[in-house]
């Protein structure tokens, strides 16, 4: 298991195997931007842990080479984040990303380039938003038979204002792609949350789906739990835990701790 720590001083590999290489450099001292370049050349897992970052912007480029299967488990805790991600997937590669966020404020741009045939990405983001959080995605299907599954789930509390903008592109001639977007925000405030799902498909031979839902937990779910003696606060805590841990394998315990922090 590879372990990358990112903090105000930059990024460093705490544990590493031979399937992963890392370069960290100052992209712009003036703008306070750091670049982290990761090349994944063999099947492996990578844990990324970001803690309390404040005045540094990060550019993270991740290259997954031909035929490589990799999992990235990322956790951002506290701090104010401005991150840009660029993923490049070559032919027959597969990248599974699980991202758990408990930030004070965040603005992310994620660019996914599916450059090789049959490249596939599963992207699963879970966040508890307490302030402004904005996530922009550009997903480029640059080769045939590529697959993208972008799932964004958030729970909006306190002063949270959450926004997911996801745009997927399939140009003409890039055939048999599978393009999926799903976003859901549980908004437990009166603040505005936004989901903008965009599918720019210029090819007929494509399967494309999107779903977007902003709302609270359903009355029926709450009623069912309450009818078993569970009070409303505990019911919401249970539902939040279920909502945020679904599809997450690595940082499940971290999510449970965060939920205990806010729901007691």
């Amino acid at each position, binding site marked *: 298991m590879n372990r990358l720590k990112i903090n105000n001083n930059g990024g460093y590999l705490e544990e590493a195997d031979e399937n992963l290489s890392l370069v960290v450099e100052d992209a712009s001292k003036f703008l306070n931007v750091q670049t982290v370049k990761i090349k994944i050349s063999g099947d492996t897992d990578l844990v990324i842990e970001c803690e309390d970052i404040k005045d540094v912007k990060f550019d993270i480029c991740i290259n997954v080479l031909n035929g490589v299967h990799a999992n990235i488990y990322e956790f951002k805790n506290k701090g104010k984040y401005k991150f840009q991600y660029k993923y490049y997937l070559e032919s027959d590669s597969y990248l599974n990303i699980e991202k758990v966020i408990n930030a004070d404020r965040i603005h992310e741009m994620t660019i996914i380039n599916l450059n090789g045939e049959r490249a596939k990405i599963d992207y699963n983001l879970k966040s508890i938003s307490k302030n402004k959080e904005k996530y922009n995605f550009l997903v480029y299907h640059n080769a045939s038979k590529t697959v993208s599954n972008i799932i964004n789930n958030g729970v909006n509390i306190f002063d949270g204002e959450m926004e997911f903008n996801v745009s997927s592109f399939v140009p003409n001639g890039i055939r048999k792609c599978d393009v999926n977007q799903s976003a859901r925000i549980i908004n437990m405030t009166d603040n505005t949350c936004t989901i903008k799902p965009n599918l720019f498909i210029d090819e007929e031979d494509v399967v494309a789906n999107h779903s977007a839902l902003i709302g609270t937990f359903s*009355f*029926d*779910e709450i*009623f*069912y*739990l*309450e*009818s*078993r*003696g*569970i*009070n*409303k606060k*505990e*019911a919401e805590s*249970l*539902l939040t*835990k*279920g*909502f*945020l*841990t*679904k599809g997450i394998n690595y940082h499940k315990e971290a999510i449970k701790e965060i939920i205990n922090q806010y729901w007691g």
Partner: protein
Amino acid sequence: MNSLKIENLTVEVEGKVILKDFNLEIKSGEIHAIMGPNGTGKSTLTKVIMGDANYKIIKGKIYYNGEVINKMKVDERARLGIFLGMQMPIAIEGVTNADFLRSAVRAKEGDNFKLLPFVKKIDELTNKLHMSSDMINRGVNDGFSGGERKKNEILQMYLLKPTIILLDEIDSGLDVDSLRIVGESVMDYYNEEKPAILLVTHYQRLLDYIKPDFIHIMSGGNIALSGDKSLALEIEKKGYDKVMEEDGHE
């Protein structure tokens, strides 16, 4: 001795009156079966007793052991000892049965909750109800068949040890074997704990297992006719319209 008394209860949903001046009292050790055509207010009755906010009480009172519970929250009613076994229990993705059941039992038992007896009880009940042992780690009713959902309701009933049990069409969607298991399990609980049971059903077949002391036929939001188990057999043979007509109802 526990009792549930419903007095002159009138209930509406979205401006439409569903229950009208409804009266009923059930006590520990009694089994009441409510039957009747669709849309006569049978399920409404169980949900109103449980405190479903979709149903507005226009007038009348619901008493639990002499105390009016009209304004009591749903979870408070449940902790008091009222249990509603639902007709179509909802599936909740992501929330495991284990987390859900532990929270429910902990809410009831408070500081007396102990994990080991809880786990043992779950094992015992999944065996009794012929449920797959992996159901405990699956989402609440998530991917469960109709029969598994009903068995899960009965499992919860056993864990929460209610004194007033409302069973809303607990027989719907059950094959003959599951119906027997569910019916016999309800009766086993009845024989052990002597709760008051109010069950809603369309079919006499459930009453082969759960033996009611009273049968009530609902019509127009009220009880139109009451009798013993022979009434259910008569309905099975003649139908609601004929039985009601013979009793002098229009």
